[in-house]
């Protein structure tokens, strides 16, 4: 099997003449935990739907576990666990009937693991799916996805609707999965602190483009926010490459810059600032900077 479990090449998608995805490229190698971030409506769910073959791409190609998304054979599908946005379970079935359906149609079902999850989440089996709370539906969906011992897990906002304790339980569940070597996870979330805990690589989707695609550690060390104070007004012509964002307030200029190095430091110094301090940025801060409408994508160093 190819090294990359998920491959996205030049993905373009138009909805009603509107460009939602404008040339997306990224790969997720086996065993990687990839966090896909983006604001609501950025296109994360669209990418996932195209990956799973639920929606056709306008241009470009995507593949999962070595097979094209448009032609995923049943055997490969059986190795992919997915939790979709809105948890599309069959609403009017009883939970027990739904479980039996999944069990009968799955290729390898881990009864022990599934029962353990049902107990942990305390999910009732005799209620109809539509009578469960949103959080319980999310947990049911997760349990069903995990019960098939998937090679690849695709999670679209899996903690939506979960309370604090349930969210923590989900995190612990995810970490348990990670401990079993070789599993690959692609997930989207708005809760950046969760993403920071478990993701190894991060992708940030904004304005139809993947403005960030690198490891979490790299992202934090390469993206810096600097607070520069000038004796008089900040120069108009301060041209540093890879400035993601720039804000000017009086004599102070705050720039968010990628791949800060000695060269850039030297260039900055020629403009003779009176002080230059680094402002620590959390993942949330970086995310907000990168998804501003006027920001630039970060290139690989």
């Amino acid at each position: 099997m190819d090294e990359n479990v998920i491959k996205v090449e030049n993905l373009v998608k138009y909805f009603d003449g509107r460009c939602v995805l404008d040339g997306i490229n990224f790969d997720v190698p086996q065993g990687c935990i990839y966090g896909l971030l983006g604001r609501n409506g950025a296109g994360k769910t669209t990418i996932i739907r195209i990956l799973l073959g639920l929606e056709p791409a306008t241009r470009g190609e995507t593949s999962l576990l070595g097979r094209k998304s448009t032609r995923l054979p049943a055997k490969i599908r059986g190795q992919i666990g997915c939790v979709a946005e809105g948890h599309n379970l069959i609403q009017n079935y009883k939970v027990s009937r739904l479980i039996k359906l999944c069990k009968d149609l799955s290729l390898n079902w881990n009864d022990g693991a599934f029962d353990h999850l049902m107990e942990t989440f305390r999910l009732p089996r005799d209620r109809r799916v539509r009578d469960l709370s949103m959080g319980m539906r999310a947990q049911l969906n997760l349990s069903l996805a995990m019960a098939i011992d998937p090679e690849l897990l695709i999670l679209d906002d899996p903690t939506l609707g979960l309370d604090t304790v349930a969210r923590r339980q989900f995190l612990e569940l995810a970490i348990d999965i990670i401990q079993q070597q070789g599993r690959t996870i692609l997930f989207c979330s708005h809760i950046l602190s969760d993403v920071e805990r478990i993701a190894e690589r991060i992708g940030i989707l904004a304005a139809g483009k993947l403005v960030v695609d690198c490891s979490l550690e790299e992202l934090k060390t390469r993206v810096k926010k600097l607070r520069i104070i000038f004796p008089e007004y900040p120069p108009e012509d301060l041209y540093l490459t890879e400035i993601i964002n720039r804000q000017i307030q009086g004599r102070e200029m705050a720039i968010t810059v990628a791949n800060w190095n000695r060269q850039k430091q030297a260039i900055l110094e020629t403009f003779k600032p009176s002080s230059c301090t680094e402002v620590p940025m959390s993942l949330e801060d970086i995310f907000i900077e990168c998804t501003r409408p006027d920001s630039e994508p970060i290139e690989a160093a």
Partner: protein
Amino acid sequence: MQIRIDNASNRPVYQQIIDQIKRDIALGRLIKDDKLPTVRVLAAQLAINPNTIAKAYRQMEGEGIIVTRPGAGAFVANLDSSLSRTVRKKLLTDVLERIAVEAYHMQIDRQTLLELFNNAAEKFNVPARKG
């Protein structure tokens, strides 16, 4: 062992783990041959990707701060006092720099500052010389 991950910090998570373990060692909370929790246990406890913790442990082993014994786990290494002393001096330097900045803004001059410091050191029995 209590480790707290600060999400607002710009330091990578694995680095934060290393910092806190080093700090615990420097402050004497962890001593030679103390057993560190396994990667698995710590990952579950902190709800962090175990690969991150594994990375922290690997780096610390590389720096000689911990040793892993096959089948037994990770243990605090025999640190010579100079290494530990360096870490301690750095930690104190960070705190002193913050005080210096405050003094500057409050327009307290260096002489007054030294007087205040000596009073505090006196109050808490900080010995005058090493040894």
